[in-house]
Each structure stands twice: as structure tokens, then as C-alpha cells.
């Protein structure tokens, strides 16, 4: 039993580090360290840099332009990216719709959609959740009615992350109302510029319109945008649930944030002349999070080692999702605690492009509460943590 990398893996790690050192743009790094969002153009620019290197799609097979990396190589890559704060490719195209197109799409669809995802020419968003269908996703009501060579789509989707940037949306739509709810769902790709689509931005607790509601009003979609068979969409969508989700635990990002937290804590007075880093109750909380991070890291490595020898990804990803998100939220809380009064100013625009004023400080303290509020989403999205517990109960404990 060992957690060591082979010499080839170590060489690969070095290659990744060297690449990131020289190719991850300094201005992006500075921006991320200052907790400012990268713009759409900047995100695409970074993804194109990865594409140029041949590293745009670590999880794709070589035949579609992927890297063909082993599980361990993917882990190393994701770790090195996370440790310096480089953003992972936007997941909706690369990790969510692409595997479904590869598995169930026609050759024609694969040729039409995959290269644009790989080269970051097309931005995708997700059309699963609806205003009345959250955890009970299969109850969705957006309809698609076949008329000749087209589907006519009506309804509403919600929580579309960066729908305002998207060229395409992949949707679960109802094509049969007469059968069991899971059996009347189809998987449809829709161009965002189609007439009849409107977007309503939704401002989240941090003041940022990160998500949208998308309305479909008699939107005409070519029938050849259907993936696989009509009414089989639920089966296709479920592929995502078991599909490999590397770096789901967010361990490298957690390590990076804890490092930042400790640096700030060392320079923060506890009000009695000592530093927050040495404040006994704060120190204990930091240690507990560090310890939890280790437990999570080794849980992820155990999962990874099992995947490497060909075992199917199981409900372990539910553990990583639950613990990873809850831990990231605990780190958010520590930043809030550390910032104290200084996290209270609600000035979200100072983290946006084009802000001309002097940012409120010290440091990024005014970001702490914004991020705390924003990241409450982590235990809700991607199958809420309660749904993940249901998965564990059903598939592991047999309850």
C-alpha cells in the first residue's frame, strides 16, 4: 500500500507545473487571487491555451481529441490546476453534454458538436432544473411536441449557470405525458439564439446574476438535435450521475484557500493584541478543517486507486460531493469569522471588471461574506447533499 507516484507520473507532474507556470496568464492569476471573476473572453482565452497544448479535455478519449490520460494523470492535472487557482474548463460542454453526445449521439452529431466544445468555440449551458422540478427532476414539465422535422418546445428552465454566455443549451424535455414520468423524457440540444427563447437573470445572494431562468415560447428545434431515441433522455442523463467527476472533492482548492486563510490570520489582530492564527478557538477550527481535508484527500485517492484498476465509479462520488462541499462551506465560514466587521460591506461591484474606486479592505475581507452566501449553493446543486445521502442509502446500505 502506498500513495506514491511513479517516476513517469512525477515527470508528468513536473511537466504540468512547468506548463502552468509559464502559460497560465499572470493577469488571470492576479485577478483570481483578488477574488475577481474572469470574464467570458478570459475564460475562453484560457481554455484555448489548454486546447493549443492538447490538454483541453483530460477526460475525453483520444479519438475525440482528448488527452487519453490515466486516472492518475487526470488527478495530477486537476490538482496542479487547483493549487494555483487556475479554473477548470467550464463543465457544461466539456464534462456534461460531451460524454452524452459521445455515448448516445450519432456520428453526424459528434462531428457537429464535439470539436466546437473542444476548441471552446461554443459555450454550453444546462437545461435540467425547472421552477417546480428541483430534486425531483423527473417531474419536469417543459414539453417538446414533434411537428414534421421539428420539435416545438414550451416551458421554462431555471438555474442556468452563465446562460447569458451560452450558445447552446442541453435540455431534458417531456415528449410523452402518458407514461411513467421517467419514461417520457427526451434529451434535446437547443441553440440559444432560437426565436422564442428569453432569459431572465437571477441575482444570487452575493449580488451577481450568475444564473438565469430560460423561457421557451414555441421554440422550433430541428429534430436532428435529439440525442438518441425519443423518451430515453432520463437514461442518458443518468450517465452523468455515475460518470467520472474528477476533482469533485475540491481538495486542491481547499488546500489553497486554507493557505490563504492562514496567511491572512497571521496578520489579523484578534482584538487583544494577538494574531487570529494563534487565537485558541480559531486555531482549533482551522486545525479541524485541515484534518478533515486530509481525510477527504485520502478518500479521494482510495477512490482514484480503485478506478485506476478498472473498478466502476460507485457511490463514492456521493461521499466526495457531500464532504467536499460541506468542507468548502466550512472554509467560507472561517473567512467570514476572520474578517469580522470587514466582511459586512456589501459592495459586489468592486469585484467586477471596470470597477474604478478604491476597494474596501483590508485585503479581500469584503469578499468573505459574498462568497459565504454564494457558496451555500454547493450543497444544493449537482444533486443536493440530501439526494446524495439517498444515493448512499439505496446503493450502498441497501435501504
Amino acid at each position, binding site marked *: *500500500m502506498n500513495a506514491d*507516484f511513479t517516476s513517469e507520473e512525477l515527470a508528468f507532474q513536473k511537466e504540468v507545473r512547468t506548463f502552468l507556470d509559464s502559460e497560465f496568464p499572470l493577469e488571470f492569476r492576479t485577478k483570481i487571487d483578488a477574488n475577481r471573476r474572469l470574464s467570458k473572453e478570459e475564460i475562453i482565452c484560457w481554455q484555448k491555451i489548454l486546447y493549443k497544448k492538447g490538454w483541453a479535455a483530460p477526460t475525453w478519449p483520444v479519438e475525440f481529441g482528448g488527452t487519453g490520460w490515466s486516472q492518475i494523470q487526470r488527478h495530477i492535472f486537476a490538482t496542479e490546476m487547483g493549487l494555483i487557482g487556475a479554473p477548470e474548463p467550464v463543465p457544461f460542454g466539456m464534462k456534461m453534454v460531451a460524454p452524452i453526445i459521445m455515448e448516445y449521439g450519432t456520428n453526424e452529431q459528434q462531428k457537429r458538436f464535439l470539436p466546437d466544445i473542444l476548441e471552446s468555440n461554443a459555450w454550453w449551458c444546462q437545461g435540467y432544473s425547472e421552477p417546480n422540478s428541483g430534486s425531483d427532476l423527473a417531474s419536469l414539465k417543459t414539453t417538446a411536441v414533434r411537428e414534421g422535422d421539428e420539435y416545438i418546445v414550451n416551458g421554462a428552465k431555471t438555474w442556468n449557470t452563465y446562460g447569458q454566455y451560452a450558445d447552446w443549451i442541453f435540455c431534458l424535455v417531456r415528449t410523452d405525458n402518458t407514461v411513467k414520468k421517467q419514461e417520457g423524457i427526451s434529451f434535446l440540444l437547443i441553440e440559444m439564439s432560437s426565436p422564442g427563447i428569453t432569459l431572465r437573470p437571477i441575482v444570487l445572494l452575493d449580488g451577481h446574476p450568475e444564473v438565469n431562468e430560460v423561457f421557451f415560447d414555441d421554440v422550433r428545434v430541428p429534430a436532428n438535435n435529439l440525442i438518441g431515441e425519443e423518451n430515453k433522455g432520463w437514461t442518458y442523463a443518468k450517465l452523468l450521475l455515475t460518470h467520472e467527476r474528477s476533482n469533485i472533492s475540491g481538495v486542491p482548492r481547499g488546500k489553497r484557500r486554507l493557505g490563504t486563510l492562514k496567511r491572512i490570520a497571521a496578520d489579523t489582530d484578534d482584538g487583544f493584541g494577538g494574531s487570529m492564527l494563534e487565537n485558541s478557538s480559531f486555531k482549533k477550527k482551522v486545525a*479541524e478543517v485541515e484534518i478533515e481535508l486530509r481525510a477527504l*484527500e*485520502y*478518500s479521494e485517492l482510495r477512490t482514484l486507486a480503485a478506478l485506476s484498476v478498472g473498478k466502476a465509479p460507485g457511490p463514492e462520488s456521493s461521499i466526495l460531493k457531500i464532504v467536499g462541499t460541506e468542507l468548502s462551506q466550512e472554509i467560507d465560514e472561517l473567512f467570514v469569522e476572520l474578517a469580522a466587521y470587514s466582511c459586512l460591506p456589501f459592495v459586489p461591484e468592486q469585484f467586477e471588471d471596470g470597477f474604478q474606486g478604491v476597494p474596501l479592505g483590508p485585503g479581500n475581507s469584503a469578499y468573505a461574506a459574498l462568497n459565504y452566501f454564494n457558496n451555500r449553493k454547493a450543497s444544493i446543486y449537482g444533486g443536493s447533499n440530501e439526494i446524495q445521502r439517498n444515493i*448512499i442509502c439505496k446503493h450502498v*446500505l*441497501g*435501504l
Partner: protein
Amino acid sequence: MDFSYTQEQQMLKESVQKFVQKNYAFDARKQIIASEEGYSKENWELFAELGWLTVPFKEEDGGFGGSAVDLTVMMDEFGKSNLVEPFTPTVILSGGLISTLAGNDQKSGLLGPLMEGKLQLACAYAEADSRFNLSSVSTTATVEGDQVNIEGGKINVLNASNADKLLVVARESGGRTDREGISIFLVDSDSEGLLIQPYTNVDGKKAAQVGFASVSIPLTARLGKAGQALSALETVVDRATVAVSAEAVGALEVLLQKTVEYSKTRKQFGSPIGTFQALQHRMADMFIECQLARSIVIMAAMKLDGSDSDVEKSKAVSAAKSRVGKAIEKVGQEAIQIHGGIGMTEELDVGHLFKRVTAIDIQFGNSDYHTAKFASL
């Protein structure tokens, strides 16, 4: 990267499983606890035959040369069966100290018989005022010519009433919590002035209060150099800490498994209680706790076997014990709660496992202690 067991580890695991299946049913264990020794001599002889007593010792000392990971493989299975035989005090603690500190002449007379199952030992370190601080030692050792005079007292010394010899941590110089000045002495259990008051711990293990009223032993009974024993003690206790943490992980997994099984058969309001989501999610959380505890113990064992610095190793051990302590509290308490009334009784093994893991939580430092230690390193 490889988290699978080697063939040898797999064999070791199966060997313990086979023994447990044959010799360690619930009632058999109860009888062992009720006996005067509180462990089975027959079992101990079998352990020797099976080679288990050699596992942690170096090959040059006649041992198996096992790694920390090997040790966790065994302890995991011991934990599942709630085994009471004094493996930790005799083999891991006392054996570990002898192996680390003793000179060759001392070793030969001790490690051989130990591995053959003919020697029982106890390690007396904790005191009334020490809590978990190994450097807090009030028991004194005063050299008088070629004799040493030991004065003081130790608490909760596991296996003391069965031990042929006690390894006693005593102070030769310095203040109560100084790191320097601590030595370890080998004291025959029939020494004059030695008062052993045996009792049974909550988990069924035999322990004792030990008093030293001017116990005189030869100077040659000191293990290693005068006043320099603390770092060896810390290293051995670190290893033992990982071992009992692994034992707890095995026990916790059984607690989870038994709780899930019970929830599928126990019916209330016309349905198995395992169909109630209020209980399901708590069992999911128990599962997560078990997995995290297992992961962090593997991490610590690997670190002990690896080439990290001593500080990194100690940090890893404290991280593991701290996290396992939390899992113990959560999984142990929930197992009793979900079992309901029957979980409160002596009739079910669940309660016995709960008591064992509770004792492990305290042994070598509880969660708070190790969290603070982790933060200070």
C-alpha cells in the same frame, strides 16, 4: 499509487478472520472477560503459533518486520471482533519500547519469550495528573549505587495484573513536565513495594492502578540511556495510536453494518424503521464517517512507513486520532440510538462495541487533545 493489500496482508487478514470465526463468538468473548485473567491464555498461545505476536518486530530481532500498514490490517480485524487479548499493551507498547530502547543483552531475554507467547507485559505511563501528556511524569526514579528506587503511582495500566514485568516511565531529573530526565525501567511484577490494584475497564479489558512504594530494582533494568526515553516513548505511542485507531475503524464498520441490518428487520408503524428517511440519512452519515476514518488511518499508517520527517509523522498520527475520535462519537452514539432500547442492553454486541470504541477515543489522547497537538506541530 496502490491502496490494495499485498498477498501477505491479505493472508494476515484472513488468518485473523478465521480465528475470530472459530473462537470469538459473542458468548465466548463474554466468558473470557468474566475469567480472572480477562483474556484467554489458549488464544494467546494460538496467536504465538499463528505468528501474530511477531508482526511489528524487526527481522533482526526475530520478528516479521511488519509495517505500520500491516499492523493496521490486523488491528482492523481485532476491532471487528472486539478482541480483548492484550495485544496492544504487551506487543505494541511494551514490545515496541523494548525493541527501540533495550540493549541486545536485554532484548534477547525478552523479545524471544514475548513472541513465543510466554511473556506478558504492561506499560505504565499515565498518571493521575498527566492526562495525555507523555512528558508529565511525577513518578520518580532515584539511583542509589547499582540500584534504582521507584516512588509514585500510575493509573489505568492495561494488562498490569497479568504482566510478568512492567515497563515503568519514571523521572530521574527535571521538573514534572520536562522532556529531559524521563527513563523507562523494567520492573518485575513481584517486586517488593509494588502494589497492583486490578479492575476491568468499561470495554472489558483488564487494567490496574499501580503504586510504587520504594520499589528497588537493579540499575541494569533501565532501558536505554538515563533520562532520554521520552522520544522513544512518543514514537511507540504514535504507532500504538494508529493501531488502536485502525481497531476503532473495524469496530465502527461493524456498528454501522449491524445498525443497517437491524433497521431492515425492526418494524414500527407497520414498516421497517430503515425505510424512514429520518434514520436513513443518519446511517448515510455513519457510512461517511466510517469511510473518512478509514481513509485517514490509512494516511497515517502510510506516513509512519514513509520517509517524512518526525514532525510530519506525528502530525499525521494526531490528524488520524482526532478524526477517528469524532467518528467514534458519531457512529457509536447513532448505533445505540437507532437500535433503541435493545442497544442499551448488555445482551447485544452493539453496546459492547460502543464501549470499546469509547475507550479507544480516550486512549493515547482524545479528539480535542490531538486536534490541539496537530495545530501546535
